[in-house]
């Protein structure tokens, strides 16, 4: 265990063991190596020795982290955070961590009150957040306010904050998932889906035959409307839907069925399959998608040229989606439209990158990359086969710029958005 950096810092410390910075530096090295108790000893010394309040503050917050990471020491950690707040009440880091620990301990009223104090007291703009503070930003205090507010009965406020966080603020990946879950728990899931209704007819960008007959769609992010747009309102089309989930809510094929399409859906959840069978006309197979013979299925729904109009690939997690993708006999069958769920927003770049290469090598054109139901959850790429779709459609609908594309913005002309409250 050769550790020259640590030893050098020990030597620097020994050279002047009353120098707060040297205590801090040694503590910081132990901290980064995961030795919380060792770091703690030097951070505490630094806090005591330093005449620089910002440095003492930093040490007190990091000391609390040391305890917190060891588990089951939240009251001890809170004590250090209270020291930090007493020292520099306008800095947000210690407030945030105190609030977080109160929430973890289910001390919701104290937590909520602390968010009020922090939001009214802290200087969020003119402060240099120190390294490893693990302070995400003001939005994280708002997040804790929504959670604690919910549990003390301030449900309407909690909903408003949660919507505000979801639609107006950039958070980290972990909190995105938590906020998404909270949207669901708070009855806000309707905001997670973007819908077309007949009132949006004039603003719909890619009009197709039969659009005027649609009162509403079903997909989470306009996949059904996209497919019909690319294929210009085709009737009697065909699809293979892998991962069908609910027969209507969020379904990419329910609207297609209403356009008299024929197809096969695959779903592993027995309850959802039963619901599908009771509600829909087309076939559904209850099976693990990684075990099926897709040659057999596609032979039943493809046309004489071995073409199928739409392929949906959506299993969880995306590694499974990609595993199933590689089982599809693309050498024999072609698809006019493919929607592939890579879930890059929470699962990272691996499947995202590998799937892109896979489809590009097969000759598919990525018409819409990084589609999302909002401005954050880029979760799908949408492809078309250039030989099976009109070039002018590709020209009109292809996106070439930008990182995340909110599906509503892509499909619908925007009008002024309504805000969700002002928490600034």
């Amino acid at each position, binding site marked *: 265990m*050769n550790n020259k950096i640590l030893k050098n810092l020990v030597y620097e410390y020994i050279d002047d063991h*009353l120098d707060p910075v040297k205590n801090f530096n040694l503590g910081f090295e132990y901290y980064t190596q995961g*030795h919380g108790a060792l770091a703690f*000893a030097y951070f505490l010394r630094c806090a005591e020795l330093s005449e620089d309040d910002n440095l003492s503050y930093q040490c007190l917050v990091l000391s609390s982290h040391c305890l917190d990471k060891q*588990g089951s020491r939240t009251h001890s950690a809170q004590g250090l955070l209270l020291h930090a707040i007493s020292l520099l009440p306008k800095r947000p880091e210690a407030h945030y961590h105190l609030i977080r620990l109160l929430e973890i301990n289910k001390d919701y009223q104290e937590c909520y009150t602390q968010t009020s104090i922090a939001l009214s007291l802290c200087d969020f703009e003119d402060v240099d957040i120190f390294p490893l503070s693990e302070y995400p930003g003001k939005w994280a205090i708002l997040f804790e306010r929504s959670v604690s507010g919910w549990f003390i009965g301030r449900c309407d406020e909690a909903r408003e904050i949660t919507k505000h966080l979801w639609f107006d603020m950039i958070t980290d990946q972990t909190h995105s998932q938590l906020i998404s879950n909270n949207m669901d728990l708070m009855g806000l899931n309707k905001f997670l889906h973007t819908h077309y209704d007949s009132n949006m007819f004039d603003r719909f960008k890619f009009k197709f035959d039969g659009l005027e007959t649609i009162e509403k769609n079903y997909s989470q992010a306009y996949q059904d409307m996209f497919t019909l747009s690319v294929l210009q309102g085709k009737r009697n089309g065909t699809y293979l839907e892998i991962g069908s989930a609910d027969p209507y809510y969020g379904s990419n094929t329910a609207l297609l069925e209403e356009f008299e399409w024929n197809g096969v859906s695959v779903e592993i959840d027995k309850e959802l399959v039963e619901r599908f069978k009771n509600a829909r006309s087309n076939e559904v197979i209850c099976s693990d998608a990684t075990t099926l013979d897709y040659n057999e299925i596609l032979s039943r729904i493809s046309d004489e040229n071995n073409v199928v109009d739409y392929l949906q690939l959506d299993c969880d997690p995306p590694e499974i989606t990609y595993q199933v993708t590689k089982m599809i006999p693309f050498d024999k069958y072609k698809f006019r439209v493919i929607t592939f769920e890579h879930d890059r927003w929470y699962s990272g770049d691996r499947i995202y990158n590998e799937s892109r290469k896979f489809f590009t090598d097969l000759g598919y054109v990525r018409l819409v990359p990084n589609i999302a139901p909002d401005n954050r959850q880029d979760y799908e790429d949408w492809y078309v086969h250039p030989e099976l779709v009109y070039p002018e459609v590709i020209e009109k609908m292809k996106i070439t710029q930008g990182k995340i594309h909110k599906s509503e913005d892509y499909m619908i002309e925007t009008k002024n958005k309504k805000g969700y409250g002002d928490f600034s």
Partner: protein
Amino acid sequence: MLNKPRTLKDSNLAKEIIKEGGDIVPIMIPSSETNGLGIMNPSILIEGDEILVNLRNVGYTFFHSDYDQKYHSRWGPLTYMHPENDLTLRTTNFLCKLNTESLEVEAYAEIDTSKLDIPPVWEFIGLEDARLARWDGKLYGIGVRRDVKPNGEGRMEFQEIEYNLDPKNHKNSYAKEVKRNRIQPPVDKNSYCEKNWMPILDKPYHFVKWSHPTEVVKANLKNNTSKQTLLADTAISLGRDLRGGSQIVRWNNQWFAVTHELDPFNHNELQLKDAYYFSRFVIWDDDWNIIKVSDAFSFMGARIEFTTGLAEYGEFFLMTFGYADAAAYTAKVPKKLIEKMLTEVSYE
């Protein structure tokens, strides 16, 4: 009336050690082994080309506000921060092998005590502050255990260790306790807690049980008893009791050890419990009269430091000590510096 502490704010023997050609080396094992908790009170033993260290890992984080003591914990300036759902004080021990040149840990293994453990009945669990000794070919960690009696009675225990420490392949390393002896005290059989007996490495099974006035005892592993072999009648005035520290080694036909002493005090008008620990070099003659001592010192300036290991290493002594119940270091101390620090004592 406030009992003001003596401070050793400027005491930093490590600086002098380095200046005189010595070294200070952190004793480290991966934090994944310790959950980031304290590693402390290491005890070193050198045998030929092998340098072993017993390293104590505790289940608490030690909180001690130093110097101005502005930042107390919720429970005062000196606190053991246990998990809030488990107030037991748990000790596990790692047997480490140091590189003979760099003195860094090159192999280690947690000492497996499962063969001899019983469900603990007291809140201090495990063998604490074990000092290493090898007698009759057997490696022992000898420390205090308090978890076997419901009143927390502490007795010195011999932990016989079998081990293999492989620097090249960690998976081959192991250490396990194969035998345990709990030794009764020699005189006061009702003593509540025996601890910090200092093994006299060149006198098998002998310990300095108390440094001053010096009391020497011998343990008998056949019947788990001990008997007093010497109780010195000489006394010197140092202001504080000398307490057990390192093992005792033979040096220049005398006995040499590092002891510790405690300066408890109550902090500020609230009379909060607090304490400082100091170290001291001590030399005994063959009759166990203390003949030389150093001034009290701190190795690296922490208020709580505890030396539990001592071994001769050429022109140096290696002294292993715990820092603030959290970190462990090896001090490679030049003999000439030790000699310079020692002064002859006068008896009253």
